[in-house]
Every structure is written in structure tokens, then in C-alpha cells.
């Protein structure tokens, strides 16, 4: 155990096991607690990638709201450069990546990958270099913003590194292409462990593993096996396995049937976007990528919307809610709750809404309304 974690354990006394989670939890739990101690005296450093398009405006929004809520975070801003950095082979500089590795926590706005060849996609670079293995997306109906579905409250946890997105394709002969889907025990165990730990720490009752093991027997079969093994360690959480086509059907008919969903890469991509659609779209959905060693990079998953960039029309909700996820990861739960309620109340009130939600407020007005609600 690290020195900080050891001290944390002694100082927390007999509540330590509750706070630090089960003994099998990964080291990120320890580091989060140790970090929470440092927040009372020094500000926490977090990397901020404003991104492109509407990125800078909504990042500004986040900074304002966080300052108004007295969150002791020092932002370490990094921008995507216009030239390829040879050390990373992408537009993200080495310093940016190092900053996230050092600070262990970050917030990312939308990044538009320039079209062209000879460099890696920005998101792929971040994922590979920072070893971000799980993508967590909570989807819940926002009270006051009516969609066709009112009772959605679920979390999708998607394996982020392998599966169908390994990028291994080749042409066998002309007209015949093969794409390889890889599932490993290591990655599947990692994401299953995280999913159950998340369910436990957030008081969730059910975890559903989504698969297509009746057809892809060995690959999804291995994924299911790993989920089964981890499930046995958490007998208090109800565990079920659902075939993906069933899952899609049940989600559009009755999303209240689901709680936490854990799945491999491709299914996760599709299901998490489907769930985002149920609650109002990508403009309202927060997301957080978890990496090894306790790294957490929260991000807004919508695009950079170049057509409304600079016009003060963008909706900062997704980035703000992602910021809240980041705060919860840092165990700054009180302020996370404050900001979260402020956002929900502002949207529920309906007086200040940006154009995509059917209102006519500007970004700055919306942000000010949230600060007032704090």
C-alpha cells in the first residue's frame, strides 16, 4: 500500500473499510481518498482540454460554475496543437499527456479530429496512452425536460480498449475483408471489476451484462465468464445476463428495467448512444473514462458544433455534468451535489434554456442562472 493510503486508513479509523471499499478494489479508491485529504489545504490540479468549436465557451462555463461553488480546483489548460507532435504521433502534445498522467484527473471538451492521414485520432491517442479502459455514462431523465421516456435512470459501462475496435483489419484477397474482434480475460475482468465496484459504491442494485454469446460463443462467452466470476464476489448485487437484441428492445419499451449495464466495446458504443437518445441526446449526457492507476478523464461526448462556435449559443450541460462526475470521483461529493442540483433546477425551471433544449438563452445567461441557483 502507498504511504498516503496507509495514513488515510489509520486516520479514518474504523470507517476505513466502508470508505475504501472492499479489499479487492483497485488502487484508485485509495488514491481518491488520499487526494480528498489534500483538497482541504491545497487546490487539486486537474487537466482541462477545452477542445475545438464550442469547446472553449463551455469550458469557460465550467470554470465559472466551479469558482462560484468554491471548488478548490486549479485548472491546467492544454490545447490541441495544429502540428503533429512526433513524440505522440498525433496533435496532442507530450506535455498534455504527461499532465493528465501527473494530475490523474481531467476534463475534456469536444475535439474534432482533423481529416487526413498519417496521424492517430485524438480520442484513440488519449485512450491508448492513458490506458482508459472503462467508459462510464450515466443516463437519467432530467426532470423538467420532457422526452418520450420519463423514468430512465441507468448507467452504461463500456469496455474501452479492445473488442471490435481493436483496429485490426486486412484485405484477405480482393473483395474479401476480415476484421478481428479480440476479447481478453484481462480487459474483461478489469471492466467487470470496475462495474461491480461502481454499483456498490453508488448504491446500485443490479448489474446486467450485455452479450451475444449465443452466436459469438467464445468471445462473448469469455466476457460473460469474467462477469460471472466478479459477480460471485458481490452477492448483494443482483446480476443478470441479457442478449443484446433483447436489451435494445427492452430499452426502448421499458428503460426502467435496467440499472447498471456492463458490456464490451461495440455493444457499449451503440447502447450508450441509444440511452443518450432516450434522455434527450448527446448535448445532455455526461461521461467519464477510467484508466489504470486511478486516472479519470471526464468528457463531453457531443461534437464540436463548428456552426455555432463563438456565438454564445452552446449548451454547456454535458460538460458541466461531466465535471460533476469528475468531482464525485475526487470524492468532493458535497460540491458535486450542489452543482448537480443547481443544473437540474435551472433546467427544470425552464426559464433559462439554450436553443437545443427549446429555449433562447445564451450560454452566459444559462451559466449565470446556474451560479445563482447554487
Amino acid at each position, binding site marked *: 500500500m502507498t504511504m498516503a493510503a496507509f495514513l488515510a486508513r489509520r486516520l479514518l479509523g474504523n470507517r476505513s473499510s466502508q470508505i475504501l471499499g472492499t479489499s479487492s478494489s483497485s488502487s484508485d479508491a485509495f488514491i481518491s481518498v488520499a487526494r480528498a485529504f489534500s483538497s482541504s489545504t491545497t487546490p487539486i490540479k486537474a487537466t482541462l482540454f477545452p477542445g475545438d468549436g464550442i469547446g472553449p465557451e463551455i469550458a469557460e462555463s465550467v470554470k465559472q460554475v466551479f469558482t462560484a461553488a468554491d471548488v478548490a480546483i486549479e485548472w491546467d489548460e492544454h490545447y490541441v496543437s495544429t502540428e503533429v507532435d512526433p513524440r505522440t504521433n498525433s496533435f496532442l502534445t507530450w506535455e498534455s499527456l504527461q499532465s493528465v498522467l501527473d494530475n490523474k484527473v481531467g476534463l475534456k471538451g469536444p475535439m474534432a479530429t482533423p481529416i487526413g492521414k498519417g496521424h492517430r485520432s485524438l480520442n484513440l491517442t488519449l485512450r491508448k496512452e492513458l490506458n482508459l479502459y472503462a467508459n462510464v455514462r450515466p443516463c437519467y431523465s432530467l426532470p423538467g425536460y420532457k422526452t418520450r421516456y420519463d423514468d430512465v435512470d441507468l448507467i452504461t459501462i463500456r469496455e474501452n480498449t479492445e473488442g471490435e475496435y481493436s483496429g485490426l483489419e486486412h484485405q484477405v484477397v480482393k473483395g474479401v475483408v476480415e*476484421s478481428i474482434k479480440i476479447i481478453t480475460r484481462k480487459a474483461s475482468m478489469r471492466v467487470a471489476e470496475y462495474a461491480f465496484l461502481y454499483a456498490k459504491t453508488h448504491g446500485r442494485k443490479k448489474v446486467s451484462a450485455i452479450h451475444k454469446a449465443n452466436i*459469438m460463443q467464445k468471445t462473448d462467452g469469455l466476457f460473460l465468464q469474467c462477469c460471472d466470476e466478479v459477480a460471485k464476489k458481490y452477492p448483494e448485487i443482483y446480476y443478470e445476463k441479457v442478449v443484446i437484441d433483447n436489451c*435494445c428492445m427492452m430499452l426502448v419499451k421499458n428503460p426502467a428495467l435496467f440499472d447498471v449495464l456492463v458490456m464490451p466495446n461495440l455493444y457499449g458504443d451503440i447502447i450508450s*448512444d441509444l440511452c443518450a437518445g*432516450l434522455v434527450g441526446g448527446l448535448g445532455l449526457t455526461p461521461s467519464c473514462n477510467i484508466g489504470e492507476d486511478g486516472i479519470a478523464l471526464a468528457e463531453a461526448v457531443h461534437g464540436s458544433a463548428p456552426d455555432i462556435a463563438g456565438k454564445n449559443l452552446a449548451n454547456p450541460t454535458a460538460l458541466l455534468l461531466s465535471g460533476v462526475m469528475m468531482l464525485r470521483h475526487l470524492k468532493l461529493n458535497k460540491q458535486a451535489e450542489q452543482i448537480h442540483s443547481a443544473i437540474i433546477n435551472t433546467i427544470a425551471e425552464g426559464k433559462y434554456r439554450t436553443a437545443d433544449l427549446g429555449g433562447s438563452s445564451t450560454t452566459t445567461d444559462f451559466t449565470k442562472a446556474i451560479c445563482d441557483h447554487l
Partner: protein
Amino acid sequence: MSCRSLNLLKNLARNANGSGIQTRSVTYMPRPGDGAPRAVTLIPGDGIGPLVTNAVEQVMEAMHAPIFFEKYDVHGEMSRMPPEVMESIRKNKVCLKGGLKTPVGGGVSSLNVQLRKELDLFASLVNCFNLPGLPTRHENVDIVVIRENTEGEYAGLEHEVVPGVVESLKVITKFCSERIAKYAFEYAYLNNRKKVTAVHKANIMKLADGLFLESCREVAKKYPSITYNEIIVDNCCMQLVAKPEQFDVMVTPNLYGNLVANTAAGIAGGTGVMPGGNVGADHAVFEQGASAGNVGKDKIVLENKANPVALLLSSAMMLRHLQFPSFADRLETAVKKVIAEGKCRTKDLGGTSTTQQVVDAVIAKLD
């Protein structure tokens, strides 16, 4: 096809008060001998399969439709389709099937997939539409999902590289992509559909889905009157949930087609009512459009609450395929009237009727 029956339904609704004036469509002129009864292979299958196929048998009997069924007993746990069943399908060219339950986890390869591969049923079609009188969260849904049925992620080529690392191959060939694209555009052309959308993930799987898209684009050029566009599969699912009216015909590779078909079926009323089928160059197998995994749900079987509507509508599709259009129309209108009335509905549609009660209601409404 569905436009014609909807018009028929509108006419019938207008004449519902018994004004006595029947508007009839212009005559379908058969060849001499077309009325001879046709043999159709029937596979009841597992779970609710026997219940719903029995429903179809009863209704066909009541209509005196010129078909007779050759029934075969097949179960999902069998490792192979029995050869006499395959022979029967090859002889009759048309088959109606309840569900076959595929055991999860290992050992037995799905019989459904085997059947499709052996008969080369390369196109799977699911028609998802709002039924008048059945309330759903989404209106104006009328989507046909045409899915490549033989390759892609379901090629079944998996192996363990080292313990703990497993690979699965997704195979896309130009040959299969081209023929499914051709089928989709041909379907749209013959059924007066205006738009074909290709669903893909070519931003990530550049070569595999890229090849699929290329084939679609080439075929699209030959049908200039049909609008063609492309959409990425995750965006597609989001749009289906938000604005399903923008979709018309969708053509997809194997896995995405499964997901999109089930999502579309879910928004339009559930898998209990959506018809579908699989077709190849020489054979056609009709079954419930989208699978809900209810094939194995014993509770539904015990209480006789399975919804026969999907298979009844699929058998109407089959009757059209066999060129018996007026029988197909009669069956479809009867089913639609029963749903529109709302008195006789099974549990998945929010009612309390049993399968038999729905069948009786449909038979009563046949004219």
C-alpha cells in the same frame, strides 16, 4: 404492398356502417392451375413456437387458403437440422417457422443460423410499423430493415489464441455486400419506397464496413429515383429513438441489422407484432420479425399468452410471396381490425387475452 392494404382498410372503415358498397381493387388474373394447393414446410420449434404456428394453421384452415403444411419437429438443442426437414424445404421452397431456442454459452451452433447458411437465405427482412389502434411512444413509424444474413460478425470463426485471449473474425465480402444492396434497392423499387439508408461503422472499421458502403454506393447509382444516404450505427440508434419517421428502408450488415431491427420493432409496438422473413435466391423462410428471447419463456407458454400477430402477419407476407394476394389481404385486414378494436390483445400489448382468443377474434373478422 402495405399501401394497398392500408387503402383497403380505409375503404372498409368508411363502409363500416354497412352501406353495402364494396370497393374492390382491380382483378388479379392468375394462370390456370395457380389455385392448386401449395405445400409449405412448417417448423413449430420451441417455447411459444408451437402455440403461434398452431394459430396460423387454424386461420389458414378457416380461410380455406390453398396451402397445406408439412409439419416437422425440430428443437434448438439438436446439433444439426434433420436432413428430411432440409429436403422438404428444398422441395417446397417456402417454410414457416416458429422460434428455435439457441442455448447460450457454448457447444451448439445456432440452428437458425445453420438454416440460413445452408439455404443461403442472404436477406433478412423485418417490417416495423405502427398498427392503427395500438398506442406507442412513437408515431409515423414505417421502417423496413434489410439485413445481410450470412456473413459479417456471425461468420462463426472464433478461436482461442492463448488461454485468456480469444479472437473472432468478422468477414465482409464484396459479393455478399453487393447482393444485399441489390436486394434492398430492388425491394424499395418494387414496393414504392422512397429512401434507402445504409447503416455502418466505417469510421472505425474502415476496411470492413468501408467495403460494405462501397457496394451500397455502386448499387445506389443504378436507382437514381431512390434517395440514398448513410448513417453511423450509434447515431442511427439514437435517431431511431428520437425521430424514427426519417427512416424508410435500411440496409445493414449482420450484427447491426439485428440491433436496429430489434430497436425498430421495440419502438413500433414490440416483437409480438412485427412480421419478417428470410429470403434467398431459391428459398424463403418466414418467421417472426424480431426475436425477443421469449422463445424460451415458459410462463408465456403455460398461460397461453403468446402473441400470434407477428406470425400471422408473416404468413400474410408468405401468401403474397406465393402469389395469393387476396388471401393475404383478407388475413391482414382481419388482424388489423382485431388490433384496432383493442378488445382482444395479449399481455405484451397491454391486454389480457390468450393466444386462442386472439385467433378466434381474427377468424371471426375474416370476410
